[in-house]
């Protein structure tokens, strides 16, 4: 149902774009309505689980939660894009259409019950992202970012397709249900394990885990700020949804977790490298790119642990991280001037006197990313670490805690600049209702999920079971 709605929405958007000159005003609000409608529909129908298209897609349960995350992030990003595109004088109608198509791809990925559907959804999402990263096609930085993203993304796709081919060859079928039920008997076949490993390596590119993270800082820095916000939240959530689907054999049927060591190693590397390198970054988008690498590391802890508790923890973490990161990127896009000026941390000096509201909001999001209780980021980390300790991975939880202690330094540094340094440059902040509403909604969600984590976790736990 939600898939058809989004699909029809894409067609309608194309018609609006070619038929009226006012599409600039209509399309963003049409997209917001579409996304909010789908998100609410998914949340309401979370407990009704059924299979569509002769066993290709599963609606409800985990996929409903993921659909809600994707659509909600997309709605917030569209809100804050309106001002941003105006600022850059880079309005292209296809921007919103590409966001809608990539959301459709993510939804197909998250609800896939067949590896082919995983692949189709992944490619629909990735191809839209390649174009979105380079949407500002006259800027050299956008060109470079999209070229790097495209080459490495297509490289990862090559791995994923080869992995799928090996899995298909050794299992004789592509149904995920079949894979999950016969996981133990297949896993004595070396080709199956190799195929699954290649498949996971390909997806490790997509979630930006070390050592497959080389593209992340450049792409996050070069692409439009709102697109970065979208990629780092919904795109990452989509890639994690595939990991969760493929590991459901381990989680629900108590099959042995062959990839425990693989996940543990990439998670430890991502956490440490992301936190340590972010310290030396002055560009805020680049800093958040490294922070996104280390957050991917925290989430992979949950995959290494591989029990129901940690999977619920990952989904909670992804939802919360989406709200925080979209809020942070919206603030950055509000402060950013034309031609990529004012994304350096120095521009945040004395922000308090220029705009008390934005200063308070960026501090809130930075505290939340650092995981300071009682904000939402803390509970995300807490649930994942707790799952790791239950799975006898205490050392990984300790590495995680240490690296989040390191990461507090560079998050708090932004707050220090905003409140305790004197302003060096003069500029006025031009933003309007769209960006502000995106910031306020995400801030409200961060605070609500922080004080009442049980609300969200309750929904997620029922969905996972």
């Amino acid at each position, binding site marked *: 149902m939600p898939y058809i709605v989004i699909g029809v929405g894409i067609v309608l958007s194309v018609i609006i774009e070619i038929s009226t000159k006012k599409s600039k005003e209509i399309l963003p609000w049409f997209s917001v309505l579409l996304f909010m409608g789908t998100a609410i529909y998914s949340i309401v129908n979370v407990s009704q689980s059924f299979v569509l298209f002769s066993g290709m897609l599963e609606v409800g349960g985990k996929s409903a939660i993921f659909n809600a995350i994707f659509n909600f992030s997309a709605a917030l990003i569209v809100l804050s894009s309106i001002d941003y595109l105006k600022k850059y004088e880079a309005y292209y109608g296809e921007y919103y259409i590409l966001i809608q198509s990539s959301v459709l791809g993510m939804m197909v990925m998250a609800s896939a019950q067949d590896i*082919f559907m995983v*692949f*189709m959804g992944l*490619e629909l999402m990735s*191809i839209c992202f*390649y*174009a979105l990263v*380079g949407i500002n*096609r*006259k*800027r*050299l*930085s956008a*060109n*470079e*970012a*999209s*070229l*790097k993203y*495209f*080459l490495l993304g*297509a*490289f990862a*796709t*090559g*791995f994923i*397709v*080869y992995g*799928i*081919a*090996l899995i*298909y*060859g050794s299992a*004789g*079928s*592509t149904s995920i249900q079949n894979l999950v039920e016969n996981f133990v008997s297949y896993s004595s076949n070396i080709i199956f394990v190799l195929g699954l490993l290649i498949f996971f390596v390909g997806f490790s590119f997509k979630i930006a885990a070390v050592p497959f993270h080389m593209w992340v*800082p*450049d792409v996050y*820095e*070069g692409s439009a700020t709102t697109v970065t916000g979208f990629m780092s939240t919904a795109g990452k959530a989509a890639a994690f949804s595939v990991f969760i689907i493929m590991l459901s054999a381990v989680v629900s049927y108590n099959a042995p977790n062959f990839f425990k060591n693989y996940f543990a190693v990439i998670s430890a590397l991502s956490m440490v490298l992301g936190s340590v390198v972010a310290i030396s970054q002055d560009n805020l988008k680049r800093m958040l790119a490294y922070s996104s690498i280390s957050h991917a590391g925290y989430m992979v802890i949950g995959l290494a642990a591989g029990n129901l508790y940690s999977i619920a923890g990952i989904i909670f973490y992804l939802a919360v991280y989406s709200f925080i990161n979209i809020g942070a990127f919206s603030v950055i896009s509000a402060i950013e001037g034309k031609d990529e000026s004012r994304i350096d941390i120095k521009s945040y000096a004395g922000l308090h006197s220029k705009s008390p509201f934005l200063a308070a909001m960026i501090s809130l999001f930075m505290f939340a990313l650092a995981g300071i209780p009682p904000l939402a980021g803390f509970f995300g980390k807490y649930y994942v670490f707790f799952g790791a300790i239950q799975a006898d991975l205490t050392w990984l939880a300790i590495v995680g805690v240490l690296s989040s202690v390191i990461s507090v330094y560079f998050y708090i540094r932004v707050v220090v600049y905003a409140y305790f340094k004197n302003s060096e440059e003069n500029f006025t902040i031009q933003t309007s209702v769209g960006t502000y509403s995106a910031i306020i909604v995400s801030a409200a969600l961060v605070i609500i999920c922080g004080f009442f984590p049980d609300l969200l976790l309750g929904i997620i736990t029922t969905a996972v079971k």
Partner: protein
Amino acid sequence: MSNVPMEYYLILSAFMFCVGVAGVLIRRNAIVVFMCIELMLNSANLTLVTFSSYLGNSIGQVFVFFVMTVAAAEAAVGLAIIIAMFRNKMTVNIDEINIFKW
């Protein structure tokens, strides 16, 4: 086809895949890198067709069509990106595309 053992096809496609990976890592021209990625996809297609033929079910062959369609879409977007890059910078050499530094 059944006269040739399945392993031969698999070894050939594994070799093609390795050539593709090596090419991506070594070559410096964006278009050649892109062609190496296509080689990786084609080696996966060969694997799929081989398994499909030897397992006697058609899922793999159907999937090959999907992979080819996706590869075409990817080529369209990728070449557009490379052309946009070339318009601004007059080069497609990956070593010269370096405005972002660590």
